[in-house]
């Protein structure tokens, strides 16, 4: 009997992302209409696309959805917007939430669009949209309308505040969701260090919301395909999704009336367990001004013995004596003293210098990496977390891969996105039977 390979070898062979395209896709055969914009809705659909669903993204004719124009670096020569405006570009913010999709254009306001959408919905498993509450109902494209032509349709609506209630009729954005959902109440600087809330730079409420919605879609498909045969109308609230992430903040308030506070880059429950500044740049000779900035490193030494070792490394044995007990270290006023001492020690060091010294002492640490440093890590490349893809529209592209692995049906990135309406002929011809002349006529009338 052959010896089983060790776990690392077993995993590496099983999950090698280079073999993904030779394996089946778990959602192949499911069709999704994605009438989405920005990140919340698009990311939901794109997670399904990474698993093999046929996702058709429907955007406004000519200029597409707003996310194409929301971020800088929209270089037409690299990422042209559409055949109607080849001199205009798509912003880099469109990356990350639209891979593997087919792109068609349609003006939802037009009567011809309603008919086209009814015909598409009749042949679709899932519809995802994230317009304001009731907008698609007003256009005759809500679940109430589409479920009549397709009772098996799973209809995922993602909105800011839900479909009913006094606070529902507003537009929501990631930052608004984080503010109203309670996130900013606990992220940001401590009161005695400025006290300002801190917005998460990535659109966390959107990407997290999209993932939650994708899970809901899969649950509804399970219900349809193995239990009931019926579709489902799903509502996801971006704001409530943020509140869902608040950990123990609500139980704490409910039990003791204590409002959880912002505590910056430290931890309210553990000390030392936070990020410190290192005074020297990791790239002192670089001509790039971005690389002249100082570094940061996570240090974790909250157990008594680790804290004592840390104090030895930084030459402050008195701190180990004064704050020998964790109950003393974790007090707010004492955390300030300890972290100030750590930063004073790290002032003449790079984050790599600090990491070397802490590694030698057996203390958990991690330099804070930027995009360049993440991209250069062999661990990321080997596992396909960062990969080069041969994009059929844009050529060689550096892109993040799926974060999870599946042995039999791996997720994969096929392409990043396409120009507005790139698949009009393919989708309208194949699914709706439109002739070449009808497509041209619809294009001329700016319906598509």
């Amino acid at each position, binding site marked *: 009997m052959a010896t089983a390979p060790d776990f690392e070898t077993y995993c590496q062979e099983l999950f090698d992302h280079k073999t993904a395209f030779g394996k089946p896709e778990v959602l192949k055969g499911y069709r999704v209409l994605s009438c989405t914009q920005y990140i919340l809705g698009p990311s939901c659909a794109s997670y399904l696309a990474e698993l093999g669903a046929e996702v058709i993204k429907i955007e406004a004719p*000519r*200029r597409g959805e707003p996310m194409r*124009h929301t*971020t*800088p*670096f*929209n*270089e*037409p*020569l*690299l*990422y*042209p917007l*559409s*055949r*109607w405006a*080849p*001199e*205009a*570009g798509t912003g880099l913010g469109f990356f990350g939430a639209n891979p593997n999709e*087919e792109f068609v254009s349609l003006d939802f306001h037009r009567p011809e669009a309603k008919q086209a959408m009814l015909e598409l919905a009749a042949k679709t498993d899932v519809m995802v949209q994230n317009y304001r509450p009731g907008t698609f109902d007003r256009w005759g494209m809500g679940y109430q309308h589409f479920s009549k032509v397709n009772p098996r349709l799973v209809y995922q609506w993602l909105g800011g505040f839900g479909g009913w209630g006094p606070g529902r009729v507003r537009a929501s954005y990631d930052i608004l969701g984080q503010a109203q959902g309670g996130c900013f109440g606990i992220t940001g600087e401590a009161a005695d260090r400025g006290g300002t809330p801190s917005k998460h730079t990535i659109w966390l409420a959107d990407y997290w919301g999209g993932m939650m919605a994708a899970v809901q879609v899969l649950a509804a498909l399970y219900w349809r395909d193995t239990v009931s045969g019926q579709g489902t109308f799903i509502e996801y609230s971006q704001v409530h999704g943020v509140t869902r992430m608040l950990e123990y903040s609500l139980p704490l308030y409910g039990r003791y009336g204590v409002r959880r506070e912002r505590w910056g880059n430290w931890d309210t429950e553990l000390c030392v367990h936070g990020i410190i500044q290192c005074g020297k740049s990791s790239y002192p000779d670089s*001509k*790039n001004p971005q690389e002249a900035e100082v570094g940061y490193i996570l240090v974790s030494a909250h157990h008594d013995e680790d804290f004592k070792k840390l104090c030895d490394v930084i030459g402050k044995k008195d701190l180990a004596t004064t704050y020998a007990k964790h109950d003393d270290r974790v007090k707010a006023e004492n955390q300030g003293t300890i972290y100030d001492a750590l930063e004073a020690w790290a002032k003449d060091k790079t984050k790599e210098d600090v990491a070397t010294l802490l590694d030698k002492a057996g203390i958990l640490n991690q330099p804070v990496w930027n995009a360049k440093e993440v991209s250069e890590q062999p661990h990321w490349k080997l596992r396909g977390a960062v990969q*080069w893809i*041969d*994009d*059929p*529209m*844009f*050529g*060689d*592209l*550096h892109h993040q891969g799926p974060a999870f692995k599946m042995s039999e049906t791996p997720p994969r990135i096929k392409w990043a996105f*396409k*120009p507005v309406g*790139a*698949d009009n*002929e*393919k989708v309208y011809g194949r699914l709706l039977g439109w002739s070449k002349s009808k497509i041209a006529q619809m294009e001329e009338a700016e319906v598509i």
Partner: protein
Amino acid sequence: MINQGLVLTCTKCSTKNFLDPYPFWNFSGNTKCATCDTLYAVKFVKGQQVSGPTVSSGKADLLPGYAEDKNGAGIAGEGKIRPAPQARPDPFSGKQKQITQSVRGKPVSGRPVKKEDLVGSRARVIADLHKT
């Protein structure tokens, strides 16, 4: 108080002029309405609008990145909105640098394209590059 001023709504014709934050991040000067050409003086420091918009005179220093009329229809055309940059300036020389290869030396899009180049699910320019 943070005063963002991302959208400049023209007081004369109600056009929404989008002062996109990247080029307007640190800006002091005139911009103008894409519909009626009314000039406005605005000043942004690190993305915050610190003065304006006030009706001004002279010429526009920087046009809005995008504009919509009061009915929501997009406004385009030379002299109305700022054309998108064809290539990003090199951070060291300041000159526009046309990128035709990725940092690992493989072909990327990055050439001027025409309408017919963008019809279909695969860009002709990339298909052609792979042939050479």
